[in-house]
């Protein structure tokens, strides 16, 4: 039977570094123990709730939300009858200045996803965490897992030290395209640069709202630097970035391309067409206009029924409930595409 509900954005967290140490070499085990280092996380503002989590998502053992596969299975997969859920571990290995340690941690996170999560329930699928500071090592990491069907994409965080279209990052995108894996670019992260083009905002509400600025930057960079042109098989997924901003951005980019195309001669077609062909987005956090019809109009403007894939963002506080998040006005065929068909097609599920 065809899959009915695919959740394209769920977060698994190690309860602590001790969760990951079994997957580190003896050297790094000793290093972690001796230094007492904590799991690196990219978080610049105190969140609305502890761990940025739904207040009911703390497992009974009191550990970090998203750290207990069995509790997550019950609270998410069983509760909502989810057929497949894609895990995006948000361990910020790239924030470590010690690249050897970051690469060891990247491997450990992927081993932990495979052994502690995917092996525990066949509905979990993994994303390959990579270290954007070391694209060559990341490419090798992608090759390492490429044949393991439990992993269905490569995971980057949207806030980076430089735009991902730049050539330094190309090994990651090449390896992903060669492996037939989409690259998911997820909300969050941070480089050595302010999180907005105008500096540091004061409040979490600003941080959370203007994340779309980073998504716009990455998307325009990937298009303009010719990543999609060089890698026609590459697919990129914008995860947790919203999507209502997309039509305006593409109108602007398409218009500018008409006059500025000689600057980027590898761009031989309308940027909007490239994006519609090679980019997808997840739904959460659903934009919630007062008039839900406006959302349908936005979808119409994006002009691509394959574009959106449903996501909950469990266990985070801005979780979207599968039975409540999509407005009733969305027609049945499109609803089915969003809830399952588009993700099944992109990730080769079912």
């Amino acid at each position: 039977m065809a899959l009915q509900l695919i959740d394209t954005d769920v977060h698994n967290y190690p309860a602590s570094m001790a969760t990951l140490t079994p997957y580190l070499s003896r050297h790094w085990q000793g290093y972690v123990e001796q230094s007492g280092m904590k799991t690196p996380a990219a978080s610049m503002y105190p969140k609305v709730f502890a761990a940025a989590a739904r207040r009911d998502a703390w497992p009974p053992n009191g550990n970090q939300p998203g750290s207990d596969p069995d509790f997550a299975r019950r609270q998410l997969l069983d509760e909502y009858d989810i057929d497949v859920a894609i895990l995006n571990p948000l361990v910020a290995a790239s924030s470590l200045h010690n690249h050897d340690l970051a690469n060891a941690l990247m491997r450990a996170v992927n081993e932990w996803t495979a052994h502690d999560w995917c092996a525990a329930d066949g509905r979990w699928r993994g994303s390959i965490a990579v270290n954007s500071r070391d694209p060559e090592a990341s490419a090798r990491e992608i090759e390492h897992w490429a044949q393991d069907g439990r992993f269905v994409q490569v995971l980057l965080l949207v806030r980076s030290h430089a735009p991902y279209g730049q050539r330094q990052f190309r090994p990651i995108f090449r390896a992903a395209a060669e492996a037939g894996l989409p690259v998911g670019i997820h909300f969050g992260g941070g480089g050595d640069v302010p999180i907005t083009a105008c500096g540091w905002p004061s409040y979490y509400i600003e941080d959370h709202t203007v994340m779309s600025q980073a998504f716009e930057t990455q998307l325009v960079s990937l298009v303009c630097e010719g990543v999609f042109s060089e890698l026609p098989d590459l697919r990129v997924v914008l995860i947790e970035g919203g999507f209502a901003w997309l039509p305006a951005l593409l109108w602007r980019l398409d218009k500018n391309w008409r006059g500025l195309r000689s600057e980027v001669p590898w761009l031989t077609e309308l940027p909007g067409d490239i994006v519609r062909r090679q980019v997808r987005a997840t739904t959460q956090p659903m934009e919630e206009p007062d008039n839900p019809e406006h959302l349908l109009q936005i979808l119409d403007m994006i002009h691509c029924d394959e574009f959106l894939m449903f996501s909950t963002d469990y266990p985070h506080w801005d979780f979207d409930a599968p039975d409540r998040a999509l407005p009733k006005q969305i027609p049945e065929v499109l609803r089915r595409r969003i809830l399952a068909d588009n993700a099944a097609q992109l990730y080769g599920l079912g």
Partner: protein
Amino acid sequence: MRRSSMAWVDVAATSLADGVHHVELDDGRGIALLRRGGQWWALRDVCPHQGARLSGGTMRGRVAPCLPGEEISLNDEEPVLVCPWHGWEFDVVTGRSLADPCRQRVRSYDVKVEAGRVWVQA
């Protein structure tokens, strides 16, 4: 509009701790029962936004409006219940959302304490 069939239902002992509690009526309806000292409130235990159980949330004073840079203060006389998912705040008396009081409202119930028990008119 209150339904005419509403009756007083015994939902809890008065020894219940301060805070937010989930109680279930015989017909399966969930109630978020709130206590602060001698004050009690009851709201339907379903958030009108996306359906979270409000009893998993927290009760606190409402943040009083002020200008940028002024001291931010809590008005404990007018508590709100904060939804455990997306943080919407609801007036514990009226059930109205602070952000959108006309359109987003959770049902509120009258509460009384009698004979050592807490009763909700539901």
